[in-house]
């Protein structure tokens, strides 16, 4: 809305700002959006056919989706992506949560230094991390193995878990932990009975971030993975060079859907966590009987 007190030049400027903002937004998402209709192309082209532009139903098909599920390479890549993603997420979540809980303690020595070190995989250029991992893991005989790829992805995902769990721990009422100790809980029980349930939203959203990180990752895979460990992004990468056909667009569309689903989940969790922190009165979903 343009305020009523704006003069003509003001109005013109405001309108210009609106238009240019929309253009920037389009520039950012158009390359992604354009993939979706193209993946339904009946022809093996990466461009819109005349029939598609006229919205003729026979110009569209699901053949590239079919092609993915008929190709053992793609099947393997999908399996790999979920397998590696799952275990990398598991490791990252356990390590990241432990690290965040430890770093949240007041008496933790060298807190800033350790935090910076743990978060460094997010900041250091990925190609450097990947190259370093490649040389290091090769020495250990882990390059080209599932374990190697999983550990590498876990290292990339851990910082996200640390960040989200640390965020839920700020403002955590430690008198709850003290109360539990007082009532007889050992430190381990305090963690599982009291701390864990209260930071769960942070842990889950951290886990989802870690999963997306692994799921979308291609650089480390290029260095570390052998033919057996090809993931979806890696398969797309070679698909772009070897077999140019819209299967890539179909799988890209699927990846977009997975990413959107995960992001929506994270946002819902974030709102839930904010509600939990915000007003205690809203805590229980349906417990009044």
């Amino acid at each position, binding site marked *: 809305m343009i305020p009523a007190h704006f003069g003509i030049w003001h109005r013109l400027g405001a309108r210009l700002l609106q238009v240019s903002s929309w253009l920037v937004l389009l520039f950012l998402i158009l390359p992604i959006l354009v993939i979706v209709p193209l993946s339904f192309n009946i022809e093996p082209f990466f461009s819109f056919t005349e029939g598609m532009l006229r919205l003729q139903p026979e110009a569209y098909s699901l053949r590239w989706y079919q092609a993915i599920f008929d190709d053992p390479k793609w099947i393997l890549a999908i399996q790999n992506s979920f397998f590696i993603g799952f275990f990398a997420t598991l490791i990252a979540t356990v390590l990241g949560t432990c690290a965040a809980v430890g770093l949240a303690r007041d008496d933790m020595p060298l807190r800033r230094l350790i935090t910076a070190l743990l978060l460094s995989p997010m900041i250091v250029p990925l190609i450097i991390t990947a190259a370093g991992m490649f040389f290091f893991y090769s020495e250990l005989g882990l390059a080209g193995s599932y374990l190697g790829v999983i550990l590498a992805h876990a290292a990339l995902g851990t910082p996200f878990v640390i960040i989200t769990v640390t965020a839920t721990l700020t403002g955590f*009422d430690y*008198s*709850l932990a*003290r*109360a*539990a*100790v*007082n*009532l*007889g*809980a*050992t*430190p381990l*029980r305090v963690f599982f*009975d*009291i701390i864990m*349930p*209260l930071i769960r939203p942070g842990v889950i959203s951290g886990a989802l971030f870690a999963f997306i990180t692994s799921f979308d990752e291609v650089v480390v895979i290029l260095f570390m993975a052998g033919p057996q460990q090809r993931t979806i992004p890696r398969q797309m990468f070679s698909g772009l060079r070897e077999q140019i056909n819209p299967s890539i667009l179909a799988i890209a569309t699927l990846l977009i859907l997975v990413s959107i689903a995960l992001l929506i989940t994270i946002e819902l969790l974030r709102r839930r966590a904010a509600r*939990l922190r915000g*007003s*205690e*009165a*809203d*805590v*229980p979903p349906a*417990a*009044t*009987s």
Partner: protein
Amino acid sequence: MAEQAGDISFLQFTNVKKTYDHKNLVVKDFNLDVAQGEFITLLGPSGSGKTTCLMMLAGFEDVTSGEILINGRSVTSIAPYARNIGMVFQQYALFPHMTIRENLAYPLKIRKQPKAQIRAKVDEYLALVELQDFGNRYPGQLSGGQRQRVALARALIFAPDIVLMDEPLGALDKKLREQMQFEIKRLHEQLGFTVIYVTHDQTEALTMSDRIAVFNNGIVQQCAPPHVLYERPANLFVADFIGESNKLKGVIASVADDTVSVRLDDGAQVSTLRANCSEIGLPTTVSVRPEKLTFTDRLGSAGNQVKARFITRHYVGEYIRYHFQTADGTELVVKNLNDSSAPQLSAQDEVALAWLPQDSQALDRQDVPTTL
């Protein structure tokens, strides 16, 4: 009440000291013997070390030196979770993700009591704090007073040897606070547990405690039953901190057993009880409670008298506060019951303020050791 019963050394603090930075002592030399079933209050301004003592007993802070003994056994050898001490926190510290029933059951579950027994215990304690209908609610759905009652029940349900309360009523409004004071006293008398209660609210301390330890600067200034604390404060700090007191400066003229005669700065000679004041010829302060001081002639010529001019009066309701000033500028306050027979005063009227020698004391500030 189990006030005088039981072993005096049920809970014992001996020469307990605490420092956080290896320079300043937060608790300087804490000694206290608590009998089983006793209600002890640690009272003092914030930062006086009272909460630290509680935290050391609960095991959340280390003891720098000295010893805390429960039944003759040093607590430092027992892990905090194994001390069997209940605690009520200022902000309740109820587990927000558990229902009230689950909160109460938690200490029993940890102690691996059978399910049926836990259910019965939880029912019993819900009834005890009159929250039978709230068992399935979450803490967030209760009012402040109700949460406080849950916190209390949770601290008691596992039958701890000692219950610690850290300013448990600080977050409640005045009416609820008084109601909860009554509630805590009722449970204490009914169940007979030992209480260490921390507060900075002197009224709360006076109404609830068997004995009160007044803290200042990490030192216990006086530890005594409420009426002794109020009527016979051991030093000026206690006289000031507990209730109000009028202070008249003077020099000790003569000393006889437990009374002294003091020449006040404005020339009047008064006789008063001797507390911790020094020797003849040294300065001291005579402390009189505002309600013991009167400008009516109900004391006749029996008491001490000082001359003062009337300044103003404040109407409080059940009583009226009269403000006076002596010739040397000392301000004096008289609390008089709202009594229509009291003489009417107008500003600058000069009156004689009288009190009985046994209602006043000659006091000094207590010197406190401050080194490690």
